[in-house]
Structure formats: structure tokens, C-alpha cells
């Protein structure tokens, strides 16, 4: 059974239908990529999954439960965490305060500290800067912090919205490596990306979103070698 199952999702902004009936699923242990051009509706889907915006129609099942109408803050303790587009770390708080807020819904202090240590071990730079105001970090460090903050809740499913946006090429490959590591340690990943090439390279499966509908689906490899996809998203 799929960990995340979305059926018939429709989202509108006023009279404009942004998402027009989308179905997709993410299985336990997978990395699934959702690729598409600017304005295709990728971020809209991410926001709708977490109920940061309302849905017109559709059903979302997560881990065997219907979460269609469950408010965002209750999804975190159920095991769904999202790294929003543009990172949106708390600029005025310190690095360590950002990380502890990631574990807001967890109670056991000892376990939280253990997760914090794991994060610091994986990213020594965050440990070095734990007392620093998060807004002073570089873009790449902020993305590390945003992902680590989401991991602090110990999610079953991690939703990543454009993690490579605005980063230098070096950091982009770092971030994709990090996503693979996170996935290997047991977290299922749904990845939304404009950087189609790298997203497809690490994805088990992918969906191509075009103006609010899914136009194509397949394994990451299949789509990487698909001629129409190459022309549209991978630069020939």
C-alpha cells in the first residue's frame, strides 16, 4: 500500500483552476519527483497536501489515514514534514532554536537531543553556527538548516519543495546527495523540482506536471531518456 495516495486533487485560486484533477502516489521508501515548469502547480500541490490552502476536490490518504481535511499542524506528529519553497527558516531565531522548533511536537527531551546530535554530526557547520542568527547563514546553509529542521520531527514522509532553488551548483549537488542519504536512512521523499535532470537522476519514480494536470509518469530513468521530456525540461 502506498504511504501517500492522492486522488482527484483539484485546487483553485478564485476562478482560476490551478490543479485540475491530479492523481499520484508515493510508496514506502521511495524518492518520487514531481517535475514541471514554472507555474505548473507544483507548489500549489505541496501546499494543498498540508492544507496550507484549501482543496476544491480530491482525497489524500497518508499512512492508511484520510488526511484530506486535517490541519497542517496535526500532520507533523502523524509523520509528514515539509520543507517549503524558499526554505522559510525563522530568520530571527538562532540555528539551534530553529532546529528545536522542528521537534516542536515531540515530547521526549532525550530523544530530541539525540536527533539534534545526529543532525550536528551530519552537518558540522550547523553545530559550529548553532548560536548564530539563522538569517545570517548563506543560502546553502539555510537549505541545510531547513531540511534538518524538518527531519527533527522524525518524519515518515519528507516533502521537499524546490530544495535546489537559488543555490550555487556546488550546493545543488550537495543537497541532492543529502536527499539520497535521508532516503537511505529510511525516510520516504516527495521531491518537487524545476531542476528536472538532477531530480530524475535520484528519483525512483517521477510525475511530469503540466498546467495543473499530470502529463506523464514513469521511473526516473525512463523519463530521463524520454525525448519529449528531454526537449521540454532537460535542454535537448
Amino acid at each position, binding site marked *: 500500500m502506498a504511504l501517500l495516495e492522492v486522488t482527484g486533487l483539484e485546487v483553485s485560486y478564485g476562478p482560476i483552476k490551478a490543479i485540475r484533477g491530479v492523481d499520484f502516489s508515493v510508496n514506502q521508501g521511495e524518492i518520487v519527483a514531481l517535475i514541471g515548469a514554472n507555474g505548473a502547480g507544483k507548489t500549489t500541490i505541496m501546499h494543498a497536501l*498540508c492544507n*496550507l490552502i484549501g482543496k476544491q476536490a480530491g482525497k489524500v490518504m497518508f499512512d492508511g489515514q484520510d488526511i484530506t481535511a486535517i*490541519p*497542517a*499542524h*496535526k*500532520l*507533523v*506528529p502523524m509523520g509528514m*514534514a*515539509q520543507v*517549503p519553497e*524558499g526554505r*522559510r*527558516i*525563522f*530568520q*530571527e*531565531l538562532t540555528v539551534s*532554536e530553529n532546529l*528545536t*522548533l*522542528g521537534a*516542536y*511536537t515531540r515530547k521526549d527531551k532525550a530523544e530530541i537531543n539525540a536527533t539534534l546530535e545526529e543532525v550536528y554530526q551530519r552537518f558540522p557547520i550547523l553545530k559550529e553556527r548553532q548560536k548564530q542568527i539563522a538569517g545570517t547563514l548563506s543560502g546553502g546553509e539555510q537549505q541545510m538548516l531547513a531540511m534538518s*529542521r*524538518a527531519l527533527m*520531527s522524525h518524519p515518515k514522509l519528507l516533502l521537499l519543495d524546490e530544495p535546489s532553488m*537559488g543555490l550555487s551548483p556546488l550546493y545543488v549537488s550537495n543537497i541532492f546527495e543529502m536527499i539520497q542519504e535521508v532516503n537511505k536512512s529510511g525516510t520516504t521523499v516527495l521531491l518537487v523540482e524545476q531542476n528536472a535532470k538532477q531530480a530524475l537522476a535520484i528519483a525512483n519514480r517521477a510525475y511530469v506536471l503540466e498546467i495543473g494536470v499530470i502529463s506523464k509518469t514513469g521511473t526516473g530513468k525512463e523519463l530521463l531518456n524520454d525525448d519529449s521530456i528531454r526537449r521540454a525540461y532537460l535542454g535537448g
Partner: protein
Amino acid sequence: MSTLIDGLSLGVIYALIALGYTMVYGIAKMLNFAHGDIIMVGAYSVFATLALCGLAFPAILVAVIVCVLLGISVERVAYRPLRGASPLAVLITAIGVSYLLQSIAQLIFGAKPRTVELFSFTPIRIGNSTISGASLLTLGVCIVIMAALTLFVNRTKTGHAMLAVSEDRGAAQLMGINVNRIIMLTFAIGSALAAFASVFYLLYIPSVNPTLGSMPGIKAFTAAVIGGIGSIPGAMIGGVLLGLIETICLRVPALAPFTTSIEFGLLIVILLFKPTGLLGKRRREKV
């Protein structure tokens, strides 16, 4: 010396009220123009409890409880349904709540001012100046309250959640923070501060009437804007600054008639040079 102490103590009263405005603005992103009337309700709670039992401390306790419950109910009934509505709609609702509270007070207690005698103080002599005991008490208690609030916001998990909601409500929800609960808590804290402010205000002017909250409300709002609305230390600094200026002006015969004009004039001058207030942050545009 006594002018300084009196000015500081009036200042910390304004600061307590300004904190209510600034926290609600920072976290719920709305101007709660009914905040001044919470002070009025607090003052009437003190008045009524004193009339019933004659004891000061139960009166203060009752004022705090009544104000907190009122603040939470107003948020739940009047403001929460408007979350996401246009700021203008929320603002008009707040003004409506303000008139509603004033009218209810007038219905229950009548329009005539009533005298409230809470504590009596003997002035304290230091050298050749006398200092009002009420001012000293106000100053001491308010400093403790503000220090506790600062620690709470900066050192506790819930305080961090409040800062997070204030900075980015959506991202805070994605952390699992229940934004409605944080906003409710903010209203509760703001109202409790208003209740304390009402007690100290009664020491300063021992009389209650249904529009008692308007002037301190407007002054404290000015203080919050001067300090930079949304900023907690800003509200404290703005409040103290305004209280000092008011007290000094009132004691200089040539300036006394213009006290209020000077205070609001200061607001205009500060906004001309620092549009976001003394400690206000310029909001960065999102990419």
C-alpha cells in the same frame, strides 16, 4: 527625582499596555483597538470586587481573570472568524468591539465616574525629595512583569513558537505549531498585562468610567508604534519614553497645556525619520 520616578512609573504602565498591542500585532497581524477597553473592564472588575468584599488582592486577581477570559472570548468570537479577511474588516470589528465593551460598562455601571480606593500610600522621603509610594510599587512590579515576559518569550518552547508564528505563520504550521492556540495565548497574555495596567492606572487616577480605556489605550498604541510595532523591547522603550515626556511636560507650567500635542508630535517626528519605529524591522520582501 520624584519627576523621574513618576515618569518612569507612568511609562511602565504605558509599556504594559503597549506590549498587548505589539504582541497581538506581531503574532496575529492585527491592530486590536479594543485593547484599551480591556483596561476599562479591568478597572471596573477592581471596582466591583472592592465594593463587594473590600479587599485589594482579590480585586486584582478578579481583574486579571476577567480580562484574560474577555480577551480570549473576543478573539474567539470576533476575530478568529475573520482570519484571512481583509485587515480593514478586522480593524472595523475591533473598533466595534471597543464600542460594545464601553456600552456594556455604561449599561451596568452607568456613565458617572466612580471613585476607587485600592491602596493608600505614605510618600517616602529620600533626602529632601519625596517619592510617591504608588509610583515605586508600580515601577517595581512592572519591571518584574516585563522581565518575566522577556524570559518567557526568549527562553521557552512556547515563547519560541510565538516568535515563529510572528515571523512566518505558514512555516510555523509546518513545524506542527497550532497557530490558533498561539494567537489565543497571545491575547490571554496581552489581556493579563492590561489587567495589571488597570490596577496601576487606578493608583495613578483613582476613578473609573466607561471610556477610561481610550486615552491610555491610544497613548500606549502610540508608544508601541514609536518603539516599532511588533517589537517587544520596542514597546517597553516607547512606553517609558512617552511616560517620561508626559510627566516632565505636565510639571513644566509652560508646556503642561500642550502635553498631549507634544506626545503625538513626537510620534510624527519619529515616524518621519524612522518609519518602522525605533526598533522596528523593515520587512523584507519575499522572493
